[in-house]
């Protein structure tokens, strides 16, 4: 496919790897924030091919992984109600709640549906006026415009039976939290290309300056990731800390203003709990009062207590980049994609699942 397959050229990848080897003179740790980049790094074997001086640290950029346990329990609770259709992206269904997951809620008779787009959920609401349709809207800034648009579409069509259960997280506050964590030592960042497609690059200049770290906005194909790593290394080796854009074929400096307008029409910034990490100030979106009728937490007004996490799961340390998946005693043993103890073993973007499937560390 055009604009994808050319960025997988093995010859040029070799040249990039050679240039990375030529550039590095000392050890560096680079965090790729986005789970999509983690997936690309592990799946394509890039981690093993990098020189030993370069350590890739996998960041918290997996929305499924950081959605709070309490909210998953809430979604399950809603899904099991009469006359409700609960829809979400496929990855959400197998994430363990405190007792069951959404897929098991479906097996118990809940009408749970996997959708490709929140706009499809609005169509389902239109076609089923006697049912309440709830979209479990998770994601980073990339997905926020689509989730906001679903609310705008429902509002425009006068639908009263549509609402969203929101768990939206934001990248820049998470980068800040990761840098400020005493245990983490990160020299440079690959910023998430599709998040910046929406929001632009402006939020990253103060981060790079204040914390003196290179930040390179990076794409997802193997050549993108290799070029992003090389750009960070060149800055580090030359003692620079700037924001650069590797992914300029997609990311405009100002992002997509129409998409930002859509987000701020429906959402407001608020404090947000990240599963495994804790609360990060001003790191998520909630629904504005104007659209309160579309807020599933208000509509269903259910009180669910915070349940304890599985004590065997070290997902918080994995997502802050403090530990690698294979350093967890449960990895590939008690915890597998078929029986995940925590969310990073579920999503294809979760670091644990990526290592399980592609690293060759687990016998198939």
């Amino acid at each position, binding site marked *: 496919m055009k604009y994808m397959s050319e960025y997988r050229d093995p010859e040029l990848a070799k040249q990039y790897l050679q240039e990375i080897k030529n550039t590095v003179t000392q050890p560096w740790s680079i965090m790729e924030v986005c789970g*999509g980049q983690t997936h690309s790094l592990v799946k394509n074997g890039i981690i093993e091919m990098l020189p030993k001086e370069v350590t890739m640290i996998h960041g918290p950029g997996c929305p499924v992984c950081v959605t709070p346990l309490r909210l998953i329990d809430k979604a399950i609770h809603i899904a099991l109600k009469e006359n409700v259709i609960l829809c979400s992206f496929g990855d959400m269904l197998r994430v363990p709640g405190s007792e069951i997951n959404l897929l098991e809620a479906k097996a118990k008779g809940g009408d749970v549906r996997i959708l490709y787009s929140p706009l499809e959920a609005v169509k389902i609401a239109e076609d089923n006026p006697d049912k309440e349709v709830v979209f479990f809207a998770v994601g980073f800034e*990339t997905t926020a*415009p689509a989730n906001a648009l679903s609310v705008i579409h429902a509002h425009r069509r006068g639908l009263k039976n549509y609402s969203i259960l929101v768990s939206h997280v934001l990248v820049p506050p998470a980068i800040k939290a990761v840098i400020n964590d005493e245990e983490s030592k990160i020299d440079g960042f690959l910023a998430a290309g599709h998040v910046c497609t929406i929001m632009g690059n402006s939020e990253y200049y103060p981060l790079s300056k204040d914390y003196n770290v290179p930040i390179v906005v990076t794409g997802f194909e193997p050549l993108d990731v290799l070029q992003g790593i090389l750009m960070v290394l060149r800055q580090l080796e030359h003692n620079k800390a700037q924001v650069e854009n590797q992914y300029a074929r997609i990311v405009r400096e100002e992002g997509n203003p*129409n998409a930002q307008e859509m987000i701020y029409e429906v959402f407001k910034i608020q404090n947000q709990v990240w599963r495994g990490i804790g609360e990060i100030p001003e790191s998520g979106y909630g629904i504005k009062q104007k659209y309160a009728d579309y807020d599933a937490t208000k509509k269903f007004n259910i009180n669910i207590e915070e349940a304890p996490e599985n004590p065997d799961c070290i997902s918080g340390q994995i997502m802050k980049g403090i530990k690698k998946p294979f350093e967890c005693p449960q990895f590939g043993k008690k915890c597998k994609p078929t029986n995940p103890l925590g969310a990073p073993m579920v999503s294809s973007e979760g670091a644990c699942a990526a290592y399980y499937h592609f690293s060759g560390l687990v016998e198939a």
Partner: protein
Amino acid sequence: MCLAVPGKIKSIEHLYDGKVRMAKISFGGIIKEASLEMLPDADVDNYVLVHVGVAISKVDEEEAQKTFKYLEEIGELGELEDVHDYLPKKDE
């Protein structure tokens, strides 16, 4: 989750009294629908990046070539830097 794929716009239609622009987009021959509400300038034959049923960016064809030329470019710059190392400094 943030997976987004580039595809080519084949056709555009206007729904809901012209308020919503929807496109049929080809991803290597597979056609799917996506909203163009966030890309008012996008037109037929443009390549756009689509995420969960919404087109979020137009591909910049010129920028798209830069990844293939980057190594050459930094090679040339590197050579220039090397040359300067051997040249006498201005005040020498």
